[in-house]
Structure formats: C-alpha cells, structure tokens
C-alpha cells in the first residue's frame, strides 16, 4: 500500500520535474523577453510542485525497501538512474522550436488540469492538498499554452505549418497520459488515485475545442504502448539527467 503511494507520487513528481527542467533550458533563450519570463515562471511552478511531491515521497520511503540510500527529496530528484525515473515520455521530448515547446505543454496541461481537479478528492490528504495548490498554477499554464496553440494554428502559414509539425511529432505520446497499471488500480480501490479513464473525455474536449478555434485537425487516436511509467525512456532523458544531475554527482551533498 505505502509502496504504491510512493510509486504513484513519484510518477506525478517526475512529470513535473522533467517538464520543469525542459522549460528551464529555455531560460535566456525564449523567443522574446516576455515569453522567456513566462516559460521560466512556468518551469519554476513545476519544480515547486515536484519539490512538494518529492518531500512527501521521501517521508513515505522511510519504511520501504525501494531505492536504498536515497533518503531526501533532493536524493530522489537528483540521484536516481534513468531507469528509475517514471515520468511520461511526452514531457522529456526536446523543446524543438517554439511550436513544439508549446504543443508539448498544451497536451500535458490539458491533462494536468483535469488530473489535479480529480486528485483534490483523493483520500490521501497530502496528495489532495498538493493537487489543490497546483491546480491554480496549472489553470494558468493551460491558458498560456492553449492561447499559443490558437495563435499559431490560426496565425501565419509558417506558424500553422510548424504547429502541425509539432502535433505530428508529439501526438503518439499523448496516449500514455492515460496509462494505468496495478499501482493505479490498487489505489483507485482505496479512493486515493484518480481513475484516468474518467479524464479521457474531458481531455479530448479541451483538445478539440482549442484545435477547432486554431483551425487545426485533431489526429486519429493512436494507441502506442510506451513504458515511461515503468522506467523505459527515449534517448532524450539521459541527456536531461546528465545536465540536471551534474552538480550533485560532481560535488555530492553540495550546498549553496
């Protein structure tokens, strides 16, 4: 039971951590000053969510046999191997051009907004509290990415071409948003986890509404069985971790 909550929390935390890290890569590289600040603000929101979740996971971990030697929130964030990260493959995909950065966020934000709204009803008080706080941030993230989808889709020929390219590149990873396994079913029975099947329609509605306004076509549903939740990743994660973990591995326990 505790093991399941630990894994469940870690999955949510890793999504936030890895997307936060991805968006942080854009610090100083945003397309315009205002957007640079917006993207890094959003990145910091994600890192903040990850911090709360890792801190909670670290308290659960005390009586578990998992991940020996990793005891604090920082250990969990910085000292695992790639196979021990359980984030969705969507969030580790490269920033690409601005269209790809935004499309990746849009698919994820449309999911997260529904997910947190449901997780607020969790019987696990910690998760419910984190969900309530994070939902406010997520509503803004969604507004930001959805508006850009509309601007790019319904913008110029160039922006429409680029956002379509991004959708094509990322669509295959959206099926994994609704991945569930034994961890989920055990916790759904306890009223702790969210049954992701109940979010599918709401997510599709958000995508369809925004795509319609953006004059974009929603691709056919694509069922691909990815295993990010079980630690099987695309090649991109290794590069993210190399940069993210460098400091902690080179100078263990470093403080500043």
């Amino acid at each position: 039971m505790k093991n399941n909550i630990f894994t469940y929390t870690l999955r949510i935390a890793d999504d936030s951590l890895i997307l936060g890290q991805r968006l942080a890569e854009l610090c100083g590289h945003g397309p315009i000053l205002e957007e640079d600040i917006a993207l890094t603000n959003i990145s910091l929101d994600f890192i903040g969510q990850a911090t709360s979740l890792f801190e909670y996971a670290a308290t659960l971990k005390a009586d578990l046999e998992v991940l020996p030697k990793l005891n604090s929130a920082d250990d969990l964030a910085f000292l695992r191997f790639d196979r021990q990260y359980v984030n969705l493959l969507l969030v580790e995909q490269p920033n690409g051009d601005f269209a790809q950065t935004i499309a990746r966020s849009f698919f994820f934000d449309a999911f997260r907004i529904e997910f947190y709204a449901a997780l607020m009803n969790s019987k696990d008080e910690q998760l419910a509290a984190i969900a309530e706080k994070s939902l406010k941030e997520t509503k803004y993230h969604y507004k930001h990415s959805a508006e850009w989808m509309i601007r790019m889709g319904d913008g110029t020929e160039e922006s429409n071409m680029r956002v379509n390219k991004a959708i094509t590149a990322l669509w295959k990873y959206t099926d994994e948003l609704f991945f569930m396994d034994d961890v989920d079913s055990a916790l759904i029975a306890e009223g702790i986890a969210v049954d992701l099947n109940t979010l599918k329609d709401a997510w599709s509605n958000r995508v369809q509404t925004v795509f319609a306004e953006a004059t974009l076509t929603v691709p056919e549903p694509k069922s691909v069985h990815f295993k990010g939740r079980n630690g099987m990743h695309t090649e991109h994660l290794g590069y993210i971790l190399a940069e993210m973990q460098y400091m902690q591995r080179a100078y263990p326990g470093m403080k500043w």
Partner: protein
Amino acid sequence: MSSSNWPLWEVFIRSKQGLNHKHVGSLRAADAEMAVDNARDVYTRRSEGVSIWVVESSNVFASDPADSDAFFEPAQSKVYRHPTFYDVPDGISHM
C-alpha cells in the same frame, strides 16, 4: 518571430493595498489579451498586484517636454495653493 512588429503596451498594476492602478512599465505583445498575460508574468511574479490594466502606448497622448516651462513653472511660485496656511485645531491628530 520578431518582436519589432508587436506594439508596445503600458502596464498599470493595482497593488494588494488597493488604491489606484500605478504605471509599472511597458512590454511588447501582439494584442491586449497577450499583453495582460505578459504583464502577469513580467510584473506580478512577486505578488505585486491584484489587477492589471494595459493600454497600447500609441494611445497615450503626452505633454510635450518643450512646453514644460509654460506648463509647470507658473505653479512653483504659488505656494498659497498648498493648504499650509491653516491652523490645525488641537483636537485633530495625524495631520
């Protein structure tokens, strides 16, 4: 994507303490909606405000600095326009 084509907007923020919206700076945005979003990110990250106004800078009509002699100098010699010549009654504090 070049920001040089985007209009400039003036940003006004009302702080938590209420009172009037204060001019805090300017930014670039394609339209009013984006200007408000950008203002939120650029100017309210440290909880500076609870309300945002944006005005396209080209809509601001300003006084001409060349006119400042005629506009502002005459007021400087008119100290009697300040309410400093009244005796404040004893019972009134915090004046």
